[in-house]
Structures are given as C-alpha cells and as structure tokens.
C-alpha cells in the first residue's frame, strides 16, 4: 500500500499539470497559426503590397531598417496615442485614425495655423488659382512625386482620389460644390464648381482630401476590405511598416519622399495605443514614450511647473454647446432660452468642466476658424435679469427640464451639475442624465416631440469653414434636420448664412459681415447654449524637437519634423 501511495500521488498531480499544459498548448498552437493569418500577416501585407506593385517602396523602407539598426539602432520617435483605427481606407476614413493616415497620405495643400505668415503650405499642389466667379479652380501639381507603391502622382491620380471620396467617402459631402474634375494635363487639374466655395479650405480638409495611388483605389473598388489588413499607398513621409490592432503602429521613412530627409529626422515612429490617460502619463514620466496624446487634464498644470517639460496650450476646434428643444414649450419661447442662458455661470463651467483649459465660446464658431468674430455677443451670468425674463414669460413659478450629455465625455459629466445648481437658482428643476453618445443622437432625432429638452454636444467643423459647417449644420432649418437638433427654424438666419456662404470666395468681406449678423441673431435667439471652446493641451518633453501642432488638424500630429534627441 505504502509504496503505491508514494508513487502515485505525484504522478497524478503530474497528470493534472500535463492536462492543463496540453490545453494551453492546444490553444496556443491554434493561436499561433491564427497569428500567422492575423497580425503577423498584417505586417507582411503592409510590406508586400508595396512590393507587389513595385519593389521600391517596401524594400527601400526595410533597407533603411537594417542598415540603421546595424549601425547605432534607428532613431525612433515613440508616441502614446488613444486613437483607434476604424478603417485603413483613406477614402472612407472619418475618425480617429487620421492621426496615422495624415502622416502616410497627403492632400493638395495644408492650412497653416492662424498665426502663420502664409495661410497655406503647398503639398501635392504647388500653386492654384480661382476664376473671378469662384466657379473654376485650377491646381498645378508638384512634379516627380511618387506614391509608396511606386506609381507617379499626377492629375489623373488626384481626380481618381477625389472622385472616389465623392462616391464612397465618409466625408464625401465636403466636395459637394464640385460638379466635375478635369485632367487638363499630366500635372494640372481643374475643378468645376456648381456654386462658388472656398476650395483651398476643402482641399486642406483632414478628412476626404488625401490623394491615393490609383492602383490601390482600383483594388479597393473591387474589394471593399482591401486596405483593412494595413495596406497603404500614399505619398506622405511615412510608410506603414507594421500594425498590430489595438496595440501599436510602426511607421518608417519613405526614402523617396519628395520633401527629402535632410536635417534632423526620426527614422521611425512607434505609436503605442494606450487608452488610459493616467497610463500615458506614467509612460511619459518614465521615459517610455517621447510624447503622449492624452494626459489627464489635472496633470497638465503639474507638468507646467516641472523642469524638462513644456506645456503647449493652443486653441482648438472643439466647441461645447447644448441644444434647446425649441419645438416644445416652454423652450419655444426665446425669453425662456435667454433666461436659461443668463442663469449659467460660464466661468464656473469652464473651471469645473475642462479645468480652466478653455475660453468662453462666442456662438458655435470656434475661435480661430472662419468666420469667427470677436463681435459676436456672449451671455454672462445675471440671475436677476434671468428671473425677470421668466416672469415675463409667465414662468415665475419655475418648471422642470431634462438634460442629457454623452456618458463617455468626462468634461461634460463634470460641468453638467453646475448647470443644475445654476438653474435651481431661478426655479428651474434640471434633471441631468448621462446616456451613451450614440443613444443621445438617436433620442434627439427619432421623436422631437418627446426628446430631451437640452442636449450637450461637442462639435467641430469637418474642414476649416465653420460657416458652411457649424453655422449651417447646427442651426439652419431643413426638412429632415440632421444636426439641427434644436429644431430651430428662423428664415432670416437661413437667408443670412446662405448668402454669406455663396460670397465666401468672391466677396469675403461681405460674407464675413453677413455671417456676423447671423451669429448675433443666433446668440440673441439662443436656440442653444454656447459654453466654451476647449484648449488643445500637449506636454512636450524638452528632448523632443519640432513638435508641430496645427489647430486645423485637430486629430493629427505631423511627425515629419519631429525628433526625440
């Protein structure tokens, strides 16, 4: 009995361990082969797609890798980002992946920040001009530019890219004024417009304006998922070397980039996807990354006081507002809306919500974006005046309202209670409710008569024209409102912004005057509350040079001039 016990107890434990090991091994071997089809494959495809069409791009990239690595190791810029990739298709892209795509692809031109000497930086177009009536735009393209797959960048490629965006792009609507695109010659492309529009601003859009290799466009037209494994074919400075979903993206120099690689440049850019702001902060402090795209707001003030870091604080496109549901009493009465706008302590909202990193908004047009005007009025808190207005509206006894905000947005979550307390001061009982981002839109759109009374929104223009975007999308009336979820309908306002929009190119001064009038009317009628324009805040360690933030590209950072020494 005893010797058997002696032998079998460890033996049975061993069976158990072996069983568990085998289970794990079974799973892992399948995981293995899966990885071959999955992320491993992604890497290969990215490289070989360039290789298939032409070898130059892919082999150029990898050669750099080996030689540089053998010498001293590549100079890598390491960035922590939160941006997910919803698509690798530059035609469809209309989301956070712009951070990566904007470094791989280029448009015809780039819009400079408001304080720059020149308004535009020419990229794939060297020059352009508009006809007198603003209906014909001619772009002269840069010669000798090649795509990462080796195809030459020419007028046909530009036409094909923009036609594709118009047809199936997420932001295809930005090209709405364009009636047809003509290839005049190899390097000249002409846009024929059905109504005058500022084409430079459209061509400089973050979304829907990237020029893509015709080979890739053709492949994507045949296979909808062509790009999704991490294939790219841009002209930009960076080639996509590898991509592991939800984990990291590695960019490497495109050796034939038309801008050249003289001067201080990084060899590679490694982007780690780290959703948590606190973790990004730790990685930045620990030196694991050179730059972090999302830090806790609380931490930025702390960084400003520390040696070795510079806090870059710029204006952004992000405008916080709330719609009033103007279809329903009592919010159909402008006096009530004005009273509520006057009840809000804007300084407190800014102090509590974005922790002071914002400026009070002047209507829905963010500061620094056309046609922002310093003469657009603002409300300041005046409880007495607010009470008087409510009395005039016959609502001295108060009423109750329901406000929703996006549960995902912590800034909104912080300042919503401030509104509740402020409204209580004038006898208005505000119920505050956090609901899902998508749900919120759905509720407001599906049944206006039963939708929420107030709806907090974070909005930004799609391209650098808040006249045709913010002012038009958010508050112009239409039969089936898309973004105008205040359901406000004011023919005077509609006419003003329609006229102003038509004059943007041909008579900018008159256009600006009309937009100004429209904004004053809008703020006075108050179909919404205009809270603040948030600041864009970046913490840049001293060893990073060439940090390049451009408010016109709020979802992108350009790595070409950046190095980590």
């Amino acid at each position: 009995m005893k010797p058997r016990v002696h032998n079998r107890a460890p033996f049975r434990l061993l069976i158990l361990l072996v069983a568990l090991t085998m289970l794990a091994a079974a799973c892992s071997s399948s995981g293995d082969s899966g990885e071959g089809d999955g992320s491993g494959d992604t890497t290969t495809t990215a490289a070989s797609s360039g290789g298939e069409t032409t070898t130059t791009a892919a082999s150029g990239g990898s050669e750099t890798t080996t030689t540089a690595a053998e010498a001293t190791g590549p100079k890598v810029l390491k960035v922590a980002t939160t941006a997910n990739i919803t698509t690798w298709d530059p035609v469809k892209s209309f989301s956070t992946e712009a951070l990566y795509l904007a470094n791989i692809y280029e448009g015809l031109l780039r819009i400079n920040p408001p304080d720059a000497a020149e308004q535009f930086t020419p990229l794939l177009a060297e020059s352009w001009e508009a006809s007198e009536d603003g209906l014909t735009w001619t772009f002269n393209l840069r010669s000798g530019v090649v795509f990462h797959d080796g195809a030459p960048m020419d007028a046909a490629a530009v036409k094909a890219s923009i036609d594709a965006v118009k047809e199936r792009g997420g932001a295809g609507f930005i090209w709405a004024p364009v009636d047809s695109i003509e290839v005049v010659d190899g390097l000249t492309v002409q846009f024929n417009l059905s109504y005058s529009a500022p084409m430079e601003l459209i061509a400089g859009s973050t979304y829907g304006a990237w020029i893509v290799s015709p080979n890739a466009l053709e492949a994507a037209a045949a296979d909808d998922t062509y790009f999704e494994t991490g294939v790219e074919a841009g002209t930009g400075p960076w080639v996509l070397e590898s991509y592991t979903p939800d984990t990291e993206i590695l960019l490497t120099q495109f050796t034939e980039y038309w801008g050249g690689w003289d001067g201080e440049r990084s060899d590679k850019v490694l982007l780690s996807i780290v959703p948590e702001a606190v973790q990004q902060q730790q990685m930045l402090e620990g030196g694991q990354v050179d730059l972090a795209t999302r830090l806790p707001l609380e931490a930025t003030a702390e960084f400003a006081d520390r040696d070795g870091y510079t806090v870059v604080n710029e204006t952004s496109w992000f405008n916080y507002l709330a719609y009033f549901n103007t279809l329903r009493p009592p919010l159909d009465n402008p006096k009530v809306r004005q009273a509520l706008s006057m009840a809000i302590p804007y300084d407190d909202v800014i102090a509590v919500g974005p922790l002071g990193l914002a400026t009070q908004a002047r209507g829905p047009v963010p500061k620094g974006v056309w046609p922002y005007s310093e003469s657009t009025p603002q409300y300041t808190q005046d409880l007495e005046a607010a009470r008087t207005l409510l009395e005039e509206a016959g609502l001295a006894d108060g009423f109750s309202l329901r406000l929703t905000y996006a549960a995902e947005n912590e800034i909104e979550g912080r300042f919503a209670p401030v509104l509740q307390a402020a409204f209580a001061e004038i006898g208005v009982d505000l119920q505050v409710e956090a609901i899902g981002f998508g749900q919120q839109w759905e509720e407001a759109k599906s049944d206006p008569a039963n939708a929420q009374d107030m709806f907090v929104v974070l909005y930004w223009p799609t391209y650098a024209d808040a006249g045709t975007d913010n002012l038009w999308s958010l508050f112009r009336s239409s039969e089936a409102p898309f973004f105008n979820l205040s359901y406000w309908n004011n023919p005077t306002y509609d006419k003003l912004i329609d006229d102003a929009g038509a004059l943007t190119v041909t008579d900018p001064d008159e256009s600006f005057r009309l937009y100004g009038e429209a904004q004053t009317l809008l703020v006075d009628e108050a179909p919404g509350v205009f809270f603040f324009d948030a600041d864009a805040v970046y913490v840049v360690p001293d060893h990073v040079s060439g940090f390049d933030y451009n408010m016109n590209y709020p979802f992108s950072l350009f790595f070409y001039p950046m190095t980590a020494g």
Partner: protein
Amino acid sequence: MRRLEFVITRFGSTLMVLLGVTVITFLLARTVPTDPAALFLGPRARPEEIAKVAEQMGLNDPLPVQYVNYMKELVQGDLGNSISTKRPVLDEIFARLPATLELLFAGMTTAIIVGILIGVFSARWKDKPIDWGGRALAILGVSIPAFFLGMLFQIVFFRWLGWFPLGGRTSVDLRFTSPITDVTGFLVFDALITGNWEGFKDALWHLFLPAMVLAAFPAGLIARMVRATMSDVLSLDYIRTARAYGQSENLIAFKLALKNAIGPAIAVIGLSFAYALTGSFFVEIIYTWPGLGQLTVNALLNLDYPLIMGVTLLGAIAYIAVNFIVDIVQAQLDPRVSLDD
C-alpha cells in the same frame, strides 16, 4: 467503455449548450436599442449612408433570418468580420489569444502551486500562526476584487517601489533592442527558447504583476478548499494509523493526506479557471495587456456583435472543455468519483 459513452453524451450536451449560447448572445446583441450601422459610421454619417451600411450588414432582415445566416457561416468556421476593425473575427481572436493564455497560464500555475502549498501548510499546522497567516492570505485573495488589487499593485510596485512596470507585455523599446522571435506566442517562453535573455527578462518582468493579480482569487479559493479537505482527511483512521506507525507529520501531510484531499480542489481549479478567464479581462484592461480582454471590452463598447459572439463562444467552449477535462482527471485520480451522471 463507460468513458467513451461519457465522452459522447458530453459532446452532445456541449453542442446543445453552445447552440443556446449563440441564441442568447445573438438576441442580446441585436436587441440592444442602438443601430450598429449608425454606430459603425459615427455621429456624422448621413442617413443614406447608414441605410446603405445597414443593408450591407443584413440588419434589415428579420432576426430569425439573420440568425440562420449567421449560423450557416458559423458552421463553416466563418465567424464573420469585426465591425470595428473589418478583419475576420477568428483572426482578431487568434491574434490576441496567446497573450491571454500566457497570462492565464502564469496566473493559474501560480494559483495552483501557491494555493495548494498554503492549504497544506494551514492544515498541517492547524490553528498555529502559520495557519492564521495562511487563512488571512486566502481570505484576502478571495475577497479583494481583481481591479482593486491590480491598481493597488500598480501604486505599490510601480509608483512607490518602481520594481515593476505599469503595464504592457514588453517595454516599448524592446522591439528595437532585442525583439522576441514569435514561436509559440508565449513571449516569455519564446524568448527563453530563442536564447533572448534580455527579451526573457523584460517579458517576465511585465508578466509578473498581472499574473499575481490574476492568481489571487483562485489561489485563495484553492487554499481554502485544500485546507478544509486536508483537515477532514487528517482526522481519518488511516492517518491515525500512519501516526501510530511513527510516520513524520510532514510525510503524512504532504504524501498521505494530500492525495486524498486534492480531488475537490481539482473541481475548484476548474471553476476558478472560468473565473480567471473573465477575471483576466479586468487585469488586461488595467495592465494594458493586449489580449482577449481588451478586445472584448472594445467589442462591447463598439457593439461589435460578430466579435462579441466570437469571444462569448470561445469562452463557453473553454469553460466546457476545462470542466470536461477536470471531470476526467478527477475520475482518474479518485476512484470514488464515477463518470456516470
């Protein structure tokens, strides 16, 4: 013979369970009051685009038709494409499985070893300081939620002591300094067999905290179970006989008693494996571990239902498989357990 019957009936019931899982997850995913097409395109999508995508995704068909279509493809091994990444669901899952399994394996191995040791020590020195300490540890392990312990460890071992990294599977730099060659997908193991000493240290260093956090609950559970059954066994006649023969207490505890006390613990190990699989989701989020947990959380947030279904099915299969193995192993180890239902 009886074992073969057992295996066959077990497979039958497994299929039924999996079918039930698909029905329930499918219904839940599709009846959430949000439009996946709208979510897919974001808030700026135009209504006509949403309608187009909804049509493409087959969302306009009646639910039973959608379900049958889904099952048709599932039977052929096609779980569809993820909505958010557009890549095949199986690829997405297999790309992350090794990371989760490595964590799970490290966590469960630690839990089994530590749990059994604590249990045996507690029983061997019952009501002595060792037992008190062991019981306290077991209670703590069982009662502290993984997400809390995870953050506590981060504060103590990263922030204060700086001994371990905050998260991730390797250092950001590693891929440039000494990249680990992918052999099995288990980085620690791969680095070891390819002789990549730097990579091995780095991967192990990153694995340590999350594995410990994951191990805490099952270790506590196993320790308590082993202590309880050991205490029972130690009061049985054959132990008394062994004592009367003058066998040492250590031999009695670790050899004679443990083999009879281990059976129920194996059942607990099976149960806690299931816990660890879902528990690893929290741990993965806290430690930015690029495994199934992150994938699942993203899938849930994006209402990526093909992916949600895929992960749920995988979880169900893993759970059933582990219980199946546990039943067989238990019957093998303990003649009192039979495979008859």
